[in-house]
């Protein structure tokens, strides 16, 4: 099975949302600040529920936050 890669725009979305801090986003989503840091740094792929909550926090659809890059040629 080819493993794809999930990337995200959270840093840019935070900047565009009046420079929302990682702590503010963490509180809105219901995770710790370290988890937001891990997601932003592509070190952790959140559950579908948390992914939807992040998208909801920014008022954008899920694909506006996360993108899937397939490793298939």
């Amino acid at each position: 099975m080819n493993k794809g890669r999930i990337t995200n725009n959270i840093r840019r979305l935070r900047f565009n949302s009046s420079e929302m801090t990682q702590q503010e986003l963490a509180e809105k989503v219901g995770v710790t600040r370290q988890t937001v840091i891990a997601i932003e740094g592509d070190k952790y792929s959140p559950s579908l529920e948390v992914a939807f909550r992040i998208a909801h926090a920014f008022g954008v659809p899920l694909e506006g936050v996360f993108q899937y890059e397939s490793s298939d040629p």
Partner: protein
Amino acid sequence: MDMSYQEKSTLGSLLAMLVVYAYYFANAFRHLGQSQFDGGTLGRLIFTVIAIIVIEIVYHIALAIRSKPEPKDERDILIECKAYRTAYFAMFSGMSLVIAWLIVAGVASVAAPGRISVAPFLMVNIILLVLVLTELLHFAAQLFYYRRGLR
């Protein structure tokens, strides 16, 4: 280093266990010749268990005062599960070796009665060592996943 409350909690538990049980086993392995627990060795074992509990309570009170306690989120729970899986395989392997050793020692003690025997003091300490190493591995694996990430 920017660490979460859970990560600091895990690091504290790892260090407490490492220091207290290093002290215990350094003493226990000096008395390997004895077959049973006596007042001194049993007292040291009870002291070790109480010391771990006291250190953990004091450390977590100090940690709660210094940094705001945070409930575990999904990443903390996933890291804990992965660390438990690593520790489970280590414990299974360790206990399998202990069982194999007991069987071999049992057969050997029948073949050479009076010369080879498995003393309860040694047996308890070997099993305790496996359990402690497994728990240390569990804490270390959690810290590894916190630092490396889960991808």
